[in-house]
């Protein structure tokens, strides 16, 4: 699940995998291996670098919360949104972006609820 969590976090933050590799000094092949092959055998020190760059605790990637299940279980009809300075109907690509935001929120809530911190 490390790869899925990393990909989801990169999407949420608008950071490309190549940028992550360049800024952390981690080989691109390693970054892509984590993301595409969901490689679980990545060195802890590598995940520490990634975590530091992305501003999350390294435990985020090792937490057993089924973050990746969020998109499959999310009920989009249960979500609402509001977009600042957006006139007219949503473009398909913008709807996709907002759906990803909803997935991010749902994933965050899964972890939050599990730890009893939700309001």
């Amino acid at each position: 699940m490390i790869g899925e969590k990393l990909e989801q976090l990169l999407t949420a933050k608008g950071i490309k995998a190549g940028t992550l590799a360049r800024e952390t000094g981690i080989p691109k092949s390693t970054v892509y291996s984590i993301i595409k092959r969901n490689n679980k055998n990545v060195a802890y020190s590598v995940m520490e670098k990634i975590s530091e760059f992305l501003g999350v605790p390294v435990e985020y990637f090792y937490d057993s919360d089924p973050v990746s299940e969020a998109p499959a279980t999310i009920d989009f009809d249960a979500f609402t949104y509001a977009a600042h300075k957006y006139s007219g109907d949503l473009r398909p690509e913008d709807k996709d972006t907002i759906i990803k935001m909803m997935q991010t929120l749902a994933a965050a809530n899964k972890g939050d609820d599990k730890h009893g911190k939700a309001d």
Partner: protein
Amino acid sequence: MDAGVLVASGSYHLKGECDSVIVSDGCHYGIFLDIDKIRTIAQEKEAVAHEWAHWISGATYTFDAPPAVRQKAETRADRRQIEKLLPFDEMRAAMQNGITEAWELAEFFNVSESLIMDAVEYYTGPCGLKF
């Protein structure tokens, strides 16, 4: 996450001037700020306040909401945003102290001139107040 509100930023490439979005499942809220569109502290403050206003007033809408519903929610958020960043009493006090030009008020409150103009229009129009 704090009090059910997730705040994140990134490059979202949404249409036009859209610089922020709030999503909600009815219980939790997520505020997403587009770092490519937000260029000043004032703009960031306004975007956060606007999304906060959606949150505090529960003014969000579904994907298939008609334009009139979306507009009502945006108007409600715009008004709460103004009340948060530019309270009427504080604006009036500033004006009474000689800060009367839009650009002066914008600098004083660290917001955009357009928000100052919106606030004046809101307070003197729908609210029926006088500075």
